[in-house]
């Protein structure tokens, strides 16, 4: 099968790869680029374990061809940590016990990040709806909701709320 050359900015770094047009973005990230934090939990775009940010929007990377990301910016869980310091979303999941087996966690955090970037002060209801494309089998969601609200509080500028 013929291959195409694409360049995708992944976590701020331009990555040039040659691949078959049918290769899913999730597979490129995992197999091609070794970014195995993005997971695959289904084959029907239901579970959201593969969620990454494409140009700032939460996208299920199992339902996007890697060639479609040519020239676009992709952020994955591996890009959340800056200079070994955890992003508040990661910190929130840790503090509020928002993960158990950890398999949904990367996708869940990327969806949460997309939410917080467009809505810095979500209500619990808004968090639940924003995460409704992400399935979790371990947590029963409650601590995930708390984790996202924790991160929202931490991300707000000082004096407008802060950490509980």
């Amino acid at each position, binding site marked *: 099968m013929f291959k195409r050359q694409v360049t995708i900015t992944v976590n701020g770094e331009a990555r040039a790869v040659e691949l*078959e047009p*049918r*290769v899913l973005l999730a*597979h490129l990230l*995992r*197999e091609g680029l*070794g*970014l*195995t*934090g*993005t*997971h*695959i*939990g*289904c*084959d*029907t775009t*239901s*579970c959201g*374990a593969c969620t990454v940010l494409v140009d700032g929007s939460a996208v299920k990377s199992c339902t996007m061809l890697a060639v479609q990301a040519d020239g676009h910016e992709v952020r*994955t*869980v*591996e890009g*959340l*940590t800056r200079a070994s310091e*955890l992003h508040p979303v*990661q910190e929130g*999941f*840790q*503090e509020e*016990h928002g*993960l*158990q*087996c*950890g*398999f*949904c*966690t*990367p996708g869940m*955090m990327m969806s949460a990040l997309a939410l917080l970037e467009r809505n810095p002060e979500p209500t*619990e209801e808004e*968090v*639940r*709806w924003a*995460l*409704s*494309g*992400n*399935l*979790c*089998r*371990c*947590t*029963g*969601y*409650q*601590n*995930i*909701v708390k984790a996202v609200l924790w991160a929202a509080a931490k991300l707000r500028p000082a004096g407008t709320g802060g950490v509980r």
Partner: protein
Amino acid sequence: MTRKEDARFVRGRGTYVDDVRLPGTLHAAVLRSPLAHARITAIDTRAAEAHPKVRVVITGAVLADRGLAWMPTLSGDVQAVLATDKVRFQGQEVAFVIADDPYSARDALALVDVDYDPLPPVVDARTALDPDAPVIRDDREGRRDNHIFDWEAGDAAATDRVFAGAAVVVAQDVLYPRVHPAPLETCAVIADHDVVTGKLTVWATTQAPHAHRTLLATITGIPEHRIRVVSPDVGGGFGNKVPIYPAYVCAVAGSMLTGRPVKWTEDRSENLMATTFARDYHMHGEIASTVDGKILALRVRVLADHGAFNGTAQPSKYPAGFFHIVTGSYDLEAAHCSVTGVYTNKAPGGVAYACSFRVAEASFLVERLVDLLALELDVDPAELRMRNLLRPEQFPYTCSTGWEYDSGDYPRALALLLETAGYRELRAEQARRRELGEHLGIGLSFFTEAVGAGPRKHMDIVGLGMADGAELRVHPTGKAVLRISVQSQGQGHETTFAQIVAHELGIGPDDVDVVHGDTDATPFGLGTYGSRSTPVSGAAASMAARKVRERARIVASAMLEVSPDDLEWSPGRWSVRGDPTAGKSITEIAAAAHSDLDLPDGVEGQLDASCVYNPPNLTFPFGAYLCVVEVDPGTGQVVVRRFVAVDDCGVRINPSIVEGQVHGGLADGIGVALMELIAFDPDGNHLGGSFMDYLLPTAVDCPSWELAETVTPSPHHPLGAKGIGECATVGSPAAVVNAVMDALRPFGVRHADMPLTPAAVWRAIQGRPLRGDLAID
């Protein structure tokens, strides 16, 4: 404290099987049967083998040449690895294609040509024993029916006598439909056979790596010391990852044939169609009581649908698991239950999805029956339970079917639930809203679990006694490594087992690392399922640490030149009785134990210890749950408004982790009760084979859980701790269903089977209950 595991998981740095990269790895895909029941007349693999990226195509015939076409199951049956004679369920493994990359392996599946001669399938378990039913397992010589086993517990004659004299008897057919544990990570394997050393390394999603090593040795003939099974991070198990699946064996065969590592990762549809299902119990329950509501006896008959191969994972003497805990939390005069297992043209399984070996089915049934009895007697269901619950002074309590419950204070837990939920106010609200034509339902469930299998005299899996090991090494600087035989799939063992050792030795949990999942590095044990980690391996960890503490006492006595009897323990330190300043910390003692210090005769150096813990009994955690639902009778839509859960698992090692376990199980309960189902059509087609149909609750479907606790320690466990992991999955579906039935009371609905989808609820209101499991109207 935050979990030790989280640091890697929140960074995307966990290592799950599909993340493992070995040089030269080949990739496999499984060709599956499109039919539920058919004879295979020919398999032509030539076109697939001609594919430029395909290395090998393995069929049943290839395996048969090596004696690998069939494998033993965890129930003493055999299962086809790749179908040779015929296929027995839709999705069954027929061929295994190994290629250079996963896309090519999938491509080549379409090039394998299989000729099938269709046979009539057995779909409805209730017809499996009909004299003219097609015989599914004609591979077994002399087999002329689909009967697997009959099993019973309790005293049938005594139970019949009580029923004959009882003033009130309520009976109900209850189907606990087939569901699936659906861990978010599917099953996967990498087999790497080293032709030079003969060593086989298998990375696999397994909850029981040691048992898998033994089974792989049995199946493949490779000596067990040359097999290493590694279960790395596991993306949820929920019982789905206890059995060995055919593709694991195929990957081993593939690696032996190609001399290279072979990786296989199933997709979601494969996971739902072919790996272990849960439940599928057709139950007929009867409950007897006096007119004033004293529950006297239970009588239960079960027809168990086990699919085409009996692959149920449970202790070998218990073909229906621990179903006989169906007497629940009540003091009965007599009880009897019988279970008949049958083959059908469906995937194997049965015990999975946090069922604690069929406690899920038992608990659901008894809690439905108690509610139906309350309806019959027109007594409040909370009041009826309170009157009949076992009293704390009755423990240890031997129930009518033989279990000895270790401890419990049930009335206290129920009272706490009713108070926490505001039960009286809820009933008042319900009455008010009924007058307005609104349908609020309140459902209760009180359950007793049986977890921590188990005493090896009674419990084994394929001959392996269910004891578990722990090995503790204390390094010269006082830092420790604990090696355990159980395998976390998210339950937080790396954190809680460190806490156990830290608690026993008086050091910090950060000073203890926990190793699990690698059979070359860890002591033998049966793995994690049935909420057995804390009861069995947790006890082993505790006992190993206590051995270290005693060794440390002797070393300290040599250091301080006093008799060991003159030393007393305070956390982290042995000191001279009456002179606390004269003492040695564990860190100092560890250094001395590794040094040139003269030790008394017979005392080895170092501070390492191990323990194999053979539990004297199971642990019996319990809980009281309440669910509030609103039902729209026009659409059948059920919304869960509140869920209040009181759990008692004895001493809580890590309260935050316990709560997380309960949250997850409560979400399972909502899923199972309201939306999850694997159904079949009359041709045996699997309906519900993807997340398009097999519905799981999202964040929007779940309420904010309201938790409370009581603490009734297990008297026989070193820490007083009981298992908790499966409690909420076991206990919650009955609360949800009881709530929906309560809401539907004005419509005269007595019972409807799960899942209570809008269609099922709507049909129940119309007086036309749905058998959704068969997709036959």
